[in-house]
């Protein structure tokens, strides 16, 4: 997962991208005939210094290789802190990424 975080005027702007097929039930039914082959990210979390700053439950309707932009209050964190992001998909596979706050 690619994570970019920038602190400016007390706001951390984050752009994160997860590399994932995000296949839907219908897509997989057409492709393999088995709806259960569908696989997509189901949950994503972001933490800085152990504090949860992001928590998303997701479905198959996010785009392929989904991009997330979001903002975090910057007053508790400083440049150089690391934003860690983790995702887990429907099959239980996990992915992670980190970005230093610039």
């Amino acid at each position, binding site marked *: 997962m690619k994570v970019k975080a920038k602190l400016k005027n007390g706001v951390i702007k984050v752009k994160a991208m997860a590399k994932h097929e995000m296949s839907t039930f219908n897509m997989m039914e057409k492709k393999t005939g088995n709806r259960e082959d569908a696989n997509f990210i189901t949950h994503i979390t972001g933490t800085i210094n152990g504090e949860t*700053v992001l928590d*998303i*439950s997701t479905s198959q*309707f*996010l*785009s392929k290789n989904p991009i*997330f932009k979001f*903002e*975090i209050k910057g007053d508790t964190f400083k440049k150089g802190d690391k934003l860690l992001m983790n995702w887990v998909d429907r099959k239980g596979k996990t992915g992670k990424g980190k970005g230093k706050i610039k």
Partner: protein
Amino acid sequence: MERRNFLNVTLGALALAVVPASVKAEDYRATKPAVWAAHTVDDALKAMYGTTTLIEEGVSLTAPDVASNGGAIPVDFSTDLDIKSIAVYQDANPEAAVCAYTVTKYTINKYSIKIKMAKSGTITIVAEGNDGKLYAAKKTLDVALGGCEG
């Protein structure tokens, strides 16, 4: 026997220590599985919040009027309201829910994502206020090329 008690106490304490962290960030897929299986926005709202009454104010939503590629439709949404969760639904796909954010004390409620829509339809953003009310924004758009066919 004593040893067993010790274990029980330790495990109990561990469980207690672990619980707050998981409560703070709710995994809606685990706690509310019906939301993700719901076929209509109304059913998803009922499963998620227990009501379908929406107040259409206080939330802003930006999406294109016409999406040329249904596989990646940019959706921007934000609110200044005091909320505990914000979620995205649409009525163009087999299931309604797209994603749900748990708001943390560090959150600024300004998001941008890309979603898939199989055909033209309406996107609904629902912000769950700490006052117990549901605030929403809707946007109907045309999708030129459906995004769920791969």
